[in-house]
């Protein structure tokens, strides 16, 4: 870890969360966090869960975990106390690291955190050799555990190094994706430290804030984010000249047709795309944006099409403790992404998901988790959750909605408030439905199955 990520000239700028941080300062911050973690009892082979907003403090605490030879579990800071409690119960980390400071304000690109590690009474040391454990929204309620080894993270960094269009030493990156998730963590933060490409996280994640972060430095600049960020920038009404901007690279969900052209019209540089997964990191790229919707697999990535699903060679399952042949079997990861592989060129085209996972601004949400959570509430008899126009909508049958479909306005309002309050306790904000619609009964097909067509459900609304 020290050799791959922290090494380098003491006065070399490496990170900018507001103020610039050089390598000597980062090494000192990591040493301080390592001392705190050690005092909390963390040792080689131990486990620490980080529940921290994207920040310099988070970066130092994560690197300190790895410096100590411990396994780091990343918990998105937006998860509710209920979700964190379930994750802690399941993963049993020995140390939980939270911040004494409050979370970031809504439009801030990063937070000011002061990580405080606390030893947990029932924590267990790492059962596997994985360096990184992440959680993904699960299809049956509990989150899916995804783990990666240090060797696999280094393999991914090597893939980035082999991509000529990916930022190199002498250039810089403006990162818009969260450093807690794979794109921002490996493609952004770790690659910047490894390739010695200084990384800036804008103070404000608005159009003006992002443009100001790009304009703040003359070095050739690559912007990394999710498609929503490219939408924001393509919609800028009067952006300043940005001669340093080389390209923007987005990943995390499919790009809307027309967005690459709109972005290039505005800035005169390409909008590149990458396809990747938490389990493997980057899988295929089209960094010049001229192959869209195709992408070329990165070095060593063996992608095949099997019955319309993309399968990828992976020697060991990334799901510790889970035996599920529909996710990994015989050395192949079943991505659950529908796609094609061109037999002549090997290029990959991703067509969408084959399960109930959707992406909200690059954050993965399994609709089944939302539906199960709603259906388990005492106020709710039945629930159907759909994804339409880029947002989650929930249709609920409740006792209060009554057989006449009204139940009284006050009654429906009270129930809606009660359901929203319960959801706010159980689900992170990005997983909650944009809209709750209460119906006396949910529409069903002739064979009695719940209808999941948004148009039919919307038509059934009072």
């Amino acid at each position: 870890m020290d050799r791959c990520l922290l090494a380098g000239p003491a006065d070399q700028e490496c990170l900018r969360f507001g103020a610039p941080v050089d390598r000597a300062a980062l090494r000192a911050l990591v040493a301080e966090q390592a001392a705190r973690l050690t005092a909390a009892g963390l040792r080689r082979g131990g486990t620490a869960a980080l529940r921290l907003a994207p920040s310099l403090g988070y970066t130092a605490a994560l690197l300190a975990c790895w410096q100590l030879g411990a396994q780091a579990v990343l918990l998105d800071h937006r998860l509710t106390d209920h979700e964190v409690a379930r994750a802690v119960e399941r993963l049993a980390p020995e140390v939980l690291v939270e911040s004494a400071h409050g979370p970031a304000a809504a439009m801030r690109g990063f937070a000011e955190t002061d990580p405080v590690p606390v030893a947990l009474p029932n924590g267990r040391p790492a059962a596997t050799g994985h360096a990184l454990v992440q959680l993904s929204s699960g299809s049956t309620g509990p989150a899916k555990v995804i783990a990666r080894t240090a060797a696999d993270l280094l393999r991914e960094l090597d893939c980035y190094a082999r991509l000529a269009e990916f930022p190199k030493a002498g250039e810089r990156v403006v990162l818009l994706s969260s450093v807690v998730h794979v794109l921002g963590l490996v493609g952004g933060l770790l690659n910047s430290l490894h390739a010695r490409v200084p990384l800036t996280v804008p103070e404000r994640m608005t159009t003006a804030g992002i443009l100001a972060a790009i304009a703040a430095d003359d070095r050739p600049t690559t912007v990394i984010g999710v498609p929503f960020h490219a939408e924001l920038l393509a919609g800028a009404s009067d952006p300043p000249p940005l001669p340093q901007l080389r390209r923007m690279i987005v990943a995390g969900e499919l790009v809307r047709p027309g967005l690459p052209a709109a972005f290039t019209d505005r800035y005169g540089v390409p909008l590149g795309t990458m396809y990747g997964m938490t389990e493997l990191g980057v899988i295929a790229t089209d960094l010049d944006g001229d192959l869209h919707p195709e992408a070329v697999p990165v070095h060593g990535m063996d992608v095949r099409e099997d019955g319309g699903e993309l399968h990828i060679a992976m020697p060991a399952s990334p799901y510790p403790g889970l035996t599920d042949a529909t996710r990994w079997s015989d050395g192949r990861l079943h991505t659950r992404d529908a796609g094609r592989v061109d037999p002549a060129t090997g290029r990959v085209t991703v067509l969408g998901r084959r399960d109930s996972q959707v992406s909200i601004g690059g954050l993965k949400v399994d609709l089944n988790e939302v539906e199960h959570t709603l259906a388990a509430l005492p106020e709710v008899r039945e629930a159907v959750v759909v994804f339409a126009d880029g947002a989650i909508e929930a249709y609920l049958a409740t006792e209060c909605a009554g057989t006449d479909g009204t139940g009284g306005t006050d009654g429906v309002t009270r129930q809606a408030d009660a359901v929203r309050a319960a959801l706010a306790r159980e689900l992170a904000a990005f997983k909650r439905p944009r809209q709750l619609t209460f119906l006396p009964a949910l529409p069903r097909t002739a064979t009695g199955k719940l209808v999941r067509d948004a148009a039919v459900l919307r038509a059934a609304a009072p």
Partner: protein
Amino acid sequence: MLPGRAEVVAMLAAFGQRSADRVPESLGSLELTWLVAEFEQRHGIELDLSDEQFGAVRTVDDAVAVLREAVLSASPGGVARS
């Protein structure tokens, strides 16, 4: 000049290049982020919403109220801390 409902709907319609009648009354977090970014560009105001304020905006009307309050509390060229 205070933002009205029509201006807010017009800003939201630009997200994904929709027509105004395709803008839903309920707002998702991405739509709200887009709206704040658009609003800042148009009005030259930085809108420093807390997570709680951001999470409390559920509808177009909620958003209109928050943006109007921000304009009223902003000093010229300054930061609006509503």
